[in-house]
């Protein structure tokens, strides 16, 4: 009986077949909280009468949303989280280690595993074929204490990808095109499942850009199969022995199919104030940009930073524009340093931040002034997101971001020499 990836993973977890629409009580393979919700999570765990973490070896705390802490209230939250993690025998990734989703990709998630955490972008783990989904503090408190979570097996929307990216067009442009077609609630409660010839050539880093934005269409998960690309990533990160294949089934039941030919895409931007407000970068050219932010779990991995470094090398960021680059993990920071990318960025007048969520969330550094326009490689541009409801956020690929940093305005990277 052909199954979707969601059905496969949840069936294997249960030990018997489940199908879309069923409710299952799943054993959670990886559970985490971070500094934005962790304090509430541990307090609720105590309120629920759950005194111990069921599987401390698979439970984690990340200090990433405000890393390092800019003020005493958040420092006290960090202290509480360090104490809580210590008390429960959980590993805590302290400031500078990286964004939860990036570290999960690098070190923790496994194909076929169920990953839950206090962050909506937990769907990023789908790039490794992990059933990853975001939940609130109470659900995660329950998952910490019981090792379980109830899940409704989602129906799946097939996203069939074909072709190869043209010059200066990347995964972010493809997922923005998908966002444009589905809209912010076009996939609510559903699983996105990525299929088609193009999947074979998409690296895990590129897949992560797709999976990360599944929630921006309302989806529960964004799953790629586990294949050779998955194995390569896990080998590169020193855990190849944890890989196992999970192929797509021919004939699986999909509610809907969306086809995207990558070779026909162009650079895109999402305009204020929703990620589905997508237009060609060429149409938005000349829109003044005060701050360019290359960072986040979406689109700032080593390959993304390499693109930015290549475009900026030997040139200078526009005088009226700030460029902030924040690698999503210590590992990416270190690799970007040794590859020389950060020298190119700094010499172009870019500034580098501590690995973490940085400007994306509005609680840390890089808040906008009234009326300013930002262009970011992040996933979300809701009003008020970057710390100021009177700011405007555009979303794009690293290539558009770098080209725009040079121009001081939205620019098409294909027009660079």
């Amino acid at each position: 009986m052909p199954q979707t990836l969601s059905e496969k993973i949840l069936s294997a977890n249960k030990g018997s077949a489940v199908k879309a629409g069923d409710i299952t009580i799943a054993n959670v393979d990886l559970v985490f909280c971070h500094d934005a919700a962790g304090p509430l999570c541990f307090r609720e765990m105590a309120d629920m009468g759950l005194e111990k973490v069921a599987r401390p070896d698979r439970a984690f705390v990340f200090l990433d949303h405000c890393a390092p802490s800019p003020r005493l209230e958040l420092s006290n939250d960090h202290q509480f989280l360090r104490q809580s993690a210590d008390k429960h025998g959980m590993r805590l990734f302290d400031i500078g280690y990286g964004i939860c989703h990036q570290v999960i990709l690098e070190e923790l998630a496994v194909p076929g595993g169920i990953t839950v955490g206090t962050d909506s972008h937990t769907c990023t783990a789908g790039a490794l074929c992990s059933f990853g989904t975001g939940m609130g503090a109470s659900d995660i408190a329950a998952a910490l204490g019981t090792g379980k979570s109830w899940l409704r097996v989602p129906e799946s929307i097939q996203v069939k990808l074909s072709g190869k990216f043209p010059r200066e067009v990347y995964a972010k442009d493809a997922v923005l095109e998908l966002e444009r077609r589905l809209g912010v609630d076009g996939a609510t409660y559903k699983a996105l499942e990525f299929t088609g010839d193009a999947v074979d050539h998409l690296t895990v880093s590129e897949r992560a850009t797709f999976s990360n934005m599944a929630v921006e269409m309302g989806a529960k998960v964004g799953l790629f199969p586990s294949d050779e690309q998955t194995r390569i990533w896990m080998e590169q990160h020193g855990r190849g022995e944890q890989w196992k294949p999970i192929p797509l089934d021919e004939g699986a039941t999909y509610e809907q199919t969306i086809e995207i030919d990558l070779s026909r895409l162009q650079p895109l931007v999402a305009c204020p104030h929703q990620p589905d407000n997508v237009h060609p970068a060429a149409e938005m050219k000349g829109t003044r940009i005060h701050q360019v932010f290359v960072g986040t779990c979406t689109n700032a991995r080593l390959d993304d930073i390499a693109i930015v470094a290549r475009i900026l090398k030997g040139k200078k960021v526009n005088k009226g524009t700030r460029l902030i680059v924040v690698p999503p993990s210590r590992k990416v920071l270190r690799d970007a340093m040794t590859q020389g990318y950060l020298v190119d960025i700094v010499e172009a007048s870019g500034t580098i931040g501590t690995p973490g969520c940085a400007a994306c969330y509005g609680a840390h550094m890089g808040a906008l002034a009234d009326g300013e326009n930002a262009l970011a490689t992040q996933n979300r541009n809701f009003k008020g997101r970057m710390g100021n409801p009177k700011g405007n956020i555009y979303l794009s690929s690293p290539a558009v971001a770098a080209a725009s940093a040079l121009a001081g305005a939205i620019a098409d990277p294909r027009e660079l020499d």
Partner: protein
Amino acid sequence: MTSESSTQNVLQGRAFKFGDDVSTDLITPGRYMHLRSNLQELAKHSMEDADPTFTQRVKPGDFVVAGKNFGMGSSREHAPLVLKLCGVSAVVAKSCARIFFRNAINLGLPVVMCDTDRISEGDRLRLSLQEAVLVNETTGETLKIGELPPVMLRILGEGGIKPFIRKYGDFDALAS
């Protein structure tokens, strides 16, 4: 709120009307993250960027009424939590974002779906979850409300996920 089932009560109050796609960034902005361990203080900024007068005007029992996709975005449980702390008795929307919906039910904050074009700012509403009836007392209209999924009704019936886990210790009771 007592540990009596949230589904037993009849809820009455005024409608505070919002549009489509109200994000969690509007409900509880990220720039107030430092107040998350001071929930009473955090609640004072609820809906601030959508309606700066909301926290001054809302009274216990009132309803947040919205268009489609209410609560889109973040998994921050603080979003439904601050609404509850403001005294909001239920969210009434055309549709609701997935994580917000689940979080609201977990907190014992009912979320009902109906055609909210039939409700205007300030209308007096009367909601009976047990009877699955929403009456707009201002217009006299009775509105059809969508059924909550059984698993949500089960959790809401216990008053939310915390009373549920306190009572049962785990989730097995949901599987039956």
